[in-house]
Structures are given as C-alpha cells and as structure tokens.
C-alpha cells in the first residue's frame, strides 16, 4: 500500500495460505475419525450416573439405546416432568420395547444377533420402577445383554 511504502520502503511479502487447506483437512480427518455420528435428538434430560468399573462399548453397530429421563424443557409443557422412555426419536411406553428390540435385531447380521447389546441411558435421578419395567421387557424380548451407561469417575 502506498502509505506503508512511504514509511517502510520495503514491502512485507504476503503470508502464503497455500497450506491452509491441508491444515484444515488434517483437523477434518481428526474429527471424522475420533467422533461418531449423532444418531438421535435427545428428548429427555439425561445425566449419567458415575461409576468406577465402567467398560467401553465394544462395537457401536451392535448397540441399541434406550433413553430414560424427564422430558427436556421444550417438551415439558406437553409431556410433564415425570420420567419417560425414548426409543429412536419419540417417547414410547415400556410395552413397545419388544417391537423396538425386534426391529433393531432385524438390522443386524444373523451372526451378530447374539452379541446385540442394549444400552440403558437413564438419568441418575430416575426411580428404579421404570427401569425395572424396561428390564422386564428386555428379558421378554430376549435382549439379555445390557449395559447401564455410566460415566467414569474416581470413586466416592
């Protein structure tokens, strides 16, 4: 620029941005590898309990999720605040779990069906009653491998 030229005399060479795409692509690949697709929109408030002996979920494709907790603030006007069960993208009753498990099982290969795991993601303040109902339905649907979602902590 004219002003700079007058003052400094020498022009500063422009910073090359040729490697910027490469840098961004690197970050992009990092995110693609280390994250997973968000599958459902949460309709329940869910704060996982904490535990020390947690194990990581092995194969994501074999896991189906059941969310249990009070409806989110946006849904509370319609649904109240008592805990609800969310399957896929809507609130369901415990009786519909059998159907849900059957459809999840149909998505898997024949060989993988026995290792299907159901992950119960329940809010920490939920009462056991609703969770027991879910567990009974899972037993009835013969989905016996379950996992209680919990965050890793250092203990009490």
């Amino acid at each position, binding site marked *: 620029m004219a002003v700079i030229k007058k003052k400094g005399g020498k022009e500063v060479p422009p910073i090359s941005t040729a490697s910027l795409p490469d840098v961004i692509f690197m970050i992009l690949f990092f995110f693609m590898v280390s*994250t997973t697709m968000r599958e459902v929109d949460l309709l329940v408030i869910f704060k996982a309990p904490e535990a020390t002996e947690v194990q990581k979920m092995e194969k994501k494709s074999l896991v189906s999720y059941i969310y249990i907790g009070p409806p989110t603030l946006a849904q509370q006007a319609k649904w109240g605040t008592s805990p609800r069960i969310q399957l896929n993208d809507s609130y369901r009753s415990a009786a519909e779990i059998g159907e849900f498990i059957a459809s999840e099982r149909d998505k898997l290969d024949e060989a993988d069906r026995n290792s299907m795991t159901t992950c119960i993601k329940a809010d920490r*303040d939920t009462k056991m009653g609703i969770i027991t109902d879910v567990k009974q339905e899972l037993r009835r649907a013969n989905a016996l491998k379950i996992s209680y979602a919990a965050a890793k902590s250092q203990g009490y």
Partner: protein
Amino acid sequence: MAINKKKTPEVNAGSMADIAFLLLIFFLVATTMNVDSGINRTLPPWVDEEQQDAPPIKERNILKVFVSAYDQLMVQGEQIHISELKDKAKEFMLNPYDDPNLPEKEVVENDILGSHVVSKGVISLKADRSTTYNTYVMVQNELSRAFNEIRDELSIEKFGKPVAELTDDQRKAVNEAIKLSISEAEPRDLGAK
C-alpha cells in the same frame, strides 16, 4: 503445433480452504465425541410365571443385598454403608476362613489356570421400585469392583500380573473361572414415595 505450446491453466486452489472449513463445521455439528461406557450385565432369560421352580439354593450360598426406597443398603439383614459393600461381597465370594455360614467352594481343573477354587456363592440384588437409579448403579459398581478384585487376585496368583495385562485367552479363562454371579430378583414395591 499451437495446441502443444499452450499451457494448461493452473487450477485455482484458493477456495479449497473454504470447502474444507465447510466440511469441518459439518462434522463438528453432526457428530459427538463421547465414547459410551457403562456397566455390563446379563439379564436372566424370561421364564413364565407357572414354571418358576428354580432349583433351591442353599441359604449359605446367597448374599442378600437390598436397596430400600430411601436408598439405604441392607446386606444379610444388616444396614451398612455403601463403602463396606465391596469388602462384604469379596469376603462372601472368597470365604477365606472356610466359615460354614459362607458359601461352599469347589476346586476346578482348567487347562489354562490349572486348579483353582470356585465359589458357589450367588449375590441376590433386590431394589425397591422407588430406589434412585444412581444408588442402584453405585451398588452394581461396588459389586463389579468386588468381582474385579477377586479376578485380579486370581490372575496375580496364577500369572503374576493383573487381569489388564493378560492375553485374551488368559483373561477369558479368568473371567470364566470367576463368574459374575449376581442374580437380580423381581423388585419389591415397598414404601413407595
């Protein structure tokens, strides 16, 4: 020829960064970072109410754990704090002094482990319908901890290193030898809040 002398124009890569940014932002929004973790359990298979005549288990082989509607913990009829549960469960499963009131044990031969002791103890976990889930998970966690410590002890005795450092076959053998014998009874509906 005239065509040969013409240079192919360079592709303008100036917008590459913008495209990459766009993709990056899409992935940032559409994906989640958290790795799911949890406490794994296996539910008992469904049985019809009519044919519920399970073989009777001896009184000494059962550790009754009950979590009340007010999140108190009761083990064998005594109220205890959750910090005591792990040691109780461990003592019950190991029965170190061959107490006649604690579970029976038997020696089992195994290809990988050699001979080792297997307890016949079963932990029966009952929770009220009004127990909070957090307490229930904490109790499950303590029971898992007890079993993991027992497995570690066996592993150190047999292989000289904890379970985490064993090969897959060895780990499988240890997990097979000390089964997670937690039985979850149907919940009671007492003292509903």
